[in-house]
């Protein structure tokens, strides 16, 4: 009994060793080799915690959780954090590698002047599909219509999944209708809701997590999802020597670009290590390792020469100028707008 008590005391003591960097990141969003190399470079230890959704990150921080140095929020979550004053302004002198970043990804509306954030990686929300099945059923793969239009859906009923995300699905429907993904006119939202409800009976599930698996195995033939997930499904299918291949493409109506950024939390225990980490990750070679691992988009120009050519030449991962013009980043909504959207979403889910 006393031994147990002692053990309890041991674990209760805050274990903040001298040189630790606390990274709160998406899982599988940094290559293990990169972490090892940083640990050797800074002679410190990297402690990682994970979240799988921006909202989880925001909820924990809103409730007061502390102790994290680096966070990796997506654009709209970044906007929220900036407005709340939850971030530490960056000392640009400590991150000279910032010059490597493609100017197209700097100075976003979320953080003008990049006072708090530095681009890390991006994904595009697009359509992934079983190439052979789409050909067999004569379905187009370059338009949102294939997941919203009943005349196409009828051929794949029960074999389609869409993201379980209010913002993403609504954005896709808005793009399909020709509106902006950031459109907040209520009448447009209602039209989008109708489109979704009309297509819903043909969908198998709202799924943001296991659709990669289902696509790779062949249970699902058409998914609405993220480009790096599709890249993974594609590689997995190839590795498993399946009789089909997975393809993915950006619909011609346009799509959502999600830019993830490195930021430092206001209460970070080690902002010095955090700055060194950011500068380290802005180096071309270090930055390229993530892209090569998961097929994520990379806003770092110096990284291009280290990236596998098949990834670098994929327009769905590295969109060209025209495609880039059709991509939009989601803005954060006001409380009122969130309420309206939420109510629409409930009706969609319950219908």
């Amino acid at each position, binding site marked *: 009994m006393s031994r147990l008590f002692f053990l309890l005391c041991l674990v*209760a003591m805050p*274990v903040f060793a001298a040189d630790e960097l606390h990274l709160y990141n998406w*899982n599988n969003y940094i290559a293990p080799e990169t972490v090892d190399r940083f640990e050797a470079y800074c002679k410190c230890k990297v402690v990682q915690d*994970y979240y799988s959704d921006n909202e989880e990150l925001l909820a924990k921080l809103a409730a007061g959780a502390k102790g994290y140095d680096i966070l990796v929020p997506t654009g709209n979550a970044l906007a929220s954090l900036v407005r709340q004053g939850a971030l530490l302004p960056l000392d640009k002198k400590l991150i000279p590698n910032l010059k490597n970043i493609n100017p197209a990804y700097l100075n976003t509306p979320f953080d003008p002047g990049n006072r708090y954030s530095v681009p890390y990686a991006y994904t595009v929300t697009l359509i992934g599909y079983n190439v052979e099945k789409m050909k067999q059923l004569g379905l187009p793969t370059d338009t949102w219509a294939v997941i919203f239009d009943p005349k196409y859906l009828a051929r794949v009923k029960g074999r389609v999944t869409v993201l379980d995300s209010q913002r993403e699905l609504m954005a896709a429907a808005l793009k399909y209708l020709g509106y902006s993904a950031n459109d907040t006119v209520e009448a447009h939202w209602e039209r989008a809701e109708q489109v979704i409800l009309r297509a819903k009976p043909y969908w198998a599930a709202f799924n*943001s997590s296991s659709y990669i*698996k289902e696509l790779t*195995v062949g249970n699902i033939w058409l998914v609405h999802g993220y480009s790096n997930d599709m890249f*993974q499904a594609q590689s997995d299918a190839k590795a498993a020597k399946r009789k089909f291949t997975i393809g993915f493409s950006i619909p011609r109506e346009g799509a959502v670009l999600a830019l993830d950024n490195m930021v430092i939390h206001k209460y970070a225990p080690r902002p010095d290590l955090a700055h060194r980490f950011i500068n380290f990750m802005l180096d071309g070679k270090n930055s390229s390792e993530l892209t090569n691992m998961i097929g994520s988009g990379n806003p770092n120009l110096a990284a291009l020469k280290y990236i596998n050519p098949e990834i670098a030449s994929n327009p769905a991962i590295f969109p060209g100028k025209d495609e880039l013009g059709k991509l939009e980043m989601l803005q954060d909504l006001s409380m009122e707008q969130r309420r309206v959207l939420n109510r629409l979403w409930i009706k969609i889910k319950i219908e």
Partner: protein
Amino acid sequence: MSKKLLAVSGIAVYAFLYLPLVVVVAYSFNNSKLNAEWVGFTWHWYRVLLSDDTMLKAAGNSLLIALTASLASTVLGTMAGYALYRYKLKLLPVLVMAPLAIPEILVGVSLLIFFVAINLTLGLLSIMLSHIAFCVGFVAIVVRSRLSGMDESLPEAARDLGATPFQAFRLVTLPLIAPGIIAGALLAFTLSIDDFVITFFTAGVGASTLPLQIYSMIKIAVTPEVNAISTLLMLLTLFLIVVASRLSPDSIRGR
């Protein structure tokens, strides 16, 4: 109920319980990154697991938390169960039932806010405290149901024979309700080792548990490494309990 019918239906339920488990264990040897269909046999994932420090540490944390939390909540829960049975208290029944009724996400958020407010550093301790809070009720209810209908005359007889109330409780009542206490402890352990929602909110920096670790893999791939650690964890826990029961004196098991 005819003995045969009972045996058959009991075994059928066991089969239902173990069907997915067979899949879990079998797929830990699956030669595919995904948990979706069988490809071929391999030890690969066990090898990956043994070199995966993060996963092993998370599993270790889970075990530690579950052991501590189930111990503490069994003690508190047995006391609560006994109090529910013996004393007609107004407050305790509500206190015991409410944690079961309140959605986990609310409990998790509220505990996080509470811990921040009292300036408790989040970590393994905050997780343990949270787990105890929601396990106590489960143990109390199981113990209470075991107590109801207990023959009051037995401890009374012990008192008549000169035992103090405490002795009567320890030597008569306790062994009689031991199966209930053990059942409650097992429940608490199970609840703790697999909890996700509350743990997510009350976990501190670097304090990961197995459910948190696995959930964070959900988007990428829940590889058979997870099956491997699940299998190993089950076997390890089984082993620990068999050892513990061999070591404990028979009187505690109420024979």
